C-alpha cells in the first residue's frame, strides 16, 4: 500500500516487561498486507524533548480487524513517553515505510534471528512465509530470561530457539554462539534484525558459509521516507544508501559495516 500519514487510535497498550510495551494501533484503512521488514514512524505527541518521529518495525498486523502492532522498548524520553499513552488516544503515524525482506523459495529451511528489539520483524516475517515453508527456525537472543518477550506467540509460528547472555534461559551466550550455528550450512536462508555487531557477525558467518542472508538495519532517521538523507549506510556497490527507502533490509553482502 502507499505510504500515508494518519492519526491512529491506540487499540491496546500492553506492557510486556519492565522496559518494553506492545502498542496496537487501529488502522481501519488497512486493506493490503504490510510487508515483513517495513516500519512505521511515530510522532511522540506533546513531547518537549523528542522532536523527530521514532521508527519501529511492524511486529504484526491483522487486515480483518484493521490493526497493526509495534514493539516499543524504552530507551529514551521519546520511547518512554510513547509507552505511556492509553488505549483510545491518537498518535500520528506514517506507514508503511521501507522495503521488505525477500521471500524464501518453497520448502527452504529458513533461520530468523532477532536480537533485542530486533525480534519485532521476525513475527511478521514468520507469518508471511508460513505458506511457503514449514522449516522456519526462529532464534531470539536477549540479555536474560526476563528480557525475552512474546515467546508463546513465537512458538506458534516456528521452531523456537533461545539464547541469553547470562544463561538464564536457552543456551548461554550471544545468538551466534547457539548450537544452530554448528550446522549453519543446513539453512537455505538467514534473515536477521538486531544490534549492528550481532548482524555483522551473523552476516560474516553467512557469507563464509555461502548462506544467503538479509539484515534489517536501524540507523537514526530524520524523515523515514528518503528525503533528509540522514540514515544512510555505506554499501559496496551503490555507495550511500538510505536505510529508510533503499532498506531497511539489505543483503548482508552489500553492507560496509
Amino acid at each position, binding site marked *: 500500500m*502507499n*505510504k*500515508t*500519514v494518519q492519526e491512529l487510535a491506540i487499540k491496546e497498550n500492553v506492557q510486556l516487561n519492565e522496559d518494553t510495551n506492545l502498542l496496537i494501533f487501529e488502522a481501519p484503512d488497512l486493506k493490503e498486507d504490510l510487508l515483513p521488514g517495513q516500519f512505521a514512524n511515530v*510522532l511522540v505527541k506533546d513531547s518537549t*524533548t*523528542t*522532536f*523527530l*518521529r521514532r521508527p519501529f518495525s511492524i511486529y504484526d498486523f491483522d487486515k480483518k480487524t484493521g490493526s497493526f502492532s509495534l514493539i516499543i522498548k524504552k530507551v529514551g524520553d521519546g520511547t518512554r513517553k510513547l509507552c505511556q499513552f492509553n488505549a483510545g488516544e491518537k498518535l*500520528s503515524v*506514517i506507514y508503511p515505510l521501507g522495503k521488505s525482506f525477500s521471500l524464501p523459495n518453497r520448502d527452504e529451511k529458513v533461520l530468523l534471528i532477532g536480537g533485542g528489539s530486533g525480534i519485532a520483524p521476525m513475527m511478521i516475517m514468520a507469518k508471511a512465509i508460513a505458506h511457503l515453508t514449514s522449516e522456519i527456525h526462529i532464534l531470539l537472543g536477549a540479555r536474560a530470561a526476563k528480557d525475552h518477550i512474546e515467546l508463546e506467540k513465537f512458538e506458534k509460528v516456528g521452531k523456537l530457539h533461545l539464547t541469553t547472555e547470562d544463561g538464564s534461559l536457552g543456551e548461554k551466550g550471544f545468538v551466534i554462539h547457539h548450537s544452530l550455528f554448528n550446522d549453519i550450512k543446513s539453512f537455505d536462508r538467514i534473515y536477521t534484525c538486531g544490534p549492528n555487531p550481532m548482524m555483522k557477525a551473523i552476516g560474516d558467518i553467512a557469507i563464509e558459509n555461502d548462506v544467503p542472508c538479509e539484515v534489517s538495519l536501524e*540507523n*537514526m*532517521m*530524520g*524523515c*523515514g*521516507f*528518503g*528525503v*533528509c*538523507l*540522514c*540514515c*544512510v*549506510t*555505506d554499501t559496496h556497490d551503490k*555507495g*550511500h544508501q538510505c536505510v529508510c527507502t533503499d532498506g531497511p533490509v539489505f543483503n548482508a553482502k552489500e553492507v560496509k559495516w
Partner: protein
Amino acid sequence: MVNLKVKINDIELKNPVLTASGTFGYGYEFSDFIDLNRLGGFVVKGTTLHPRQGNAYPRMAETPSGMLNAVGLQNKGVDYFIEHIYPKIKDVDSKVFVNLSGSTVEDYIIGAEKLNEVKGLAGIELNISCPNVKEGGMAFGVTCPGAEAVVKAVREVYDSTLMVKLSPNVTDVAEIARAVEGAGADSISLINTLLGMAVDAEKRKPILSTVTGGLSGPAVKPVALRMVWQVANAVKVPIVGMGGIMNATDAIEFLLAGATAVQLGTANFIDPEVTVKVVEGIEEYMNRHNISDIHDIIGGLQL
C-alpha cells in the same frame, strides 16, 4: 477569495509557500502525501556539478526543538538531475527551483550554464551557505567579496530568476545581502542552517561524523526572523524567509518581518503534509483578519 499570489522577480507563485532544499527531495517523494500542485513552489535538493557521496554516517543529531545535519550535499550531479529527475517533475503545476552549490566559482558557472538550458525551470537558488562541505558553498557566503564574486559570475551566464541563499554564520547578514543584491541577485533566501555541534557525554565523542553540522528546526526561528527583518530593511529584492517554520502562524511571522515568500524545511520531516496545511492556514488567517491580499501582510510588522 483571498489573493495569495506573490512574485519573485518575474516568477509568479500561486501562494508564498515553498519548500527548503534538502528537506523535500525532488518533490515526488511527497506525492503519496500531498498534491504537489498546491505548493507555491519547491526547491530541490542541493545539486553540484559532479556527483557527491556526502559525508559518513552519523549525519544527524536530534537537538532540543531541532536537529543538526551534516549530509554534505549528497546528490547525483547536475547532468543526472537534468536528464533523469527534472523530466519527472517538470509538469507539476508549481514552480521548481534548483539549489545549486559548488566548490569553485567555475563549478557554479558551469552548473548554472547547464541549468540555463532547462526549459520551464523557475530559477536557481544559489547555495553559498552550506556549512557541511569543507571547501564548499559557505566559504563564498561569509564574506562580501566572496559572495559578490560568485553571484556576479553566475548572473552573467544565467538568465532566469537567481535567488541567493545566505548563511546565518556571519557577523552582519545585511552587509552580505547588499553585496549579493549589488551583484545581480533577483531574490535573497535565508537562513541556511546555523553551524552547531552535539556531543555524546557517555562516549566523550561528537555525535556527527563531521563533528559540526547545520542546526535547523524551531530552535533557530528567532534568529531567522531577526535576520529576515534585518535583510528586508537592507535590500529591495524580494526575500524568501525560512528557519524553523512549523505552521501557518510561523509563516505569517516571517511575512510580517518582510519576507515575500517562505520555505518550509525540517517541518516536512515531522509532517509530510505540513506545506498544504500552511497554505490553508495562511488563508484562514487572512479571512479571520479581513485581509484580501497577501501583500497587506508582507512587511506589515507594526512597530
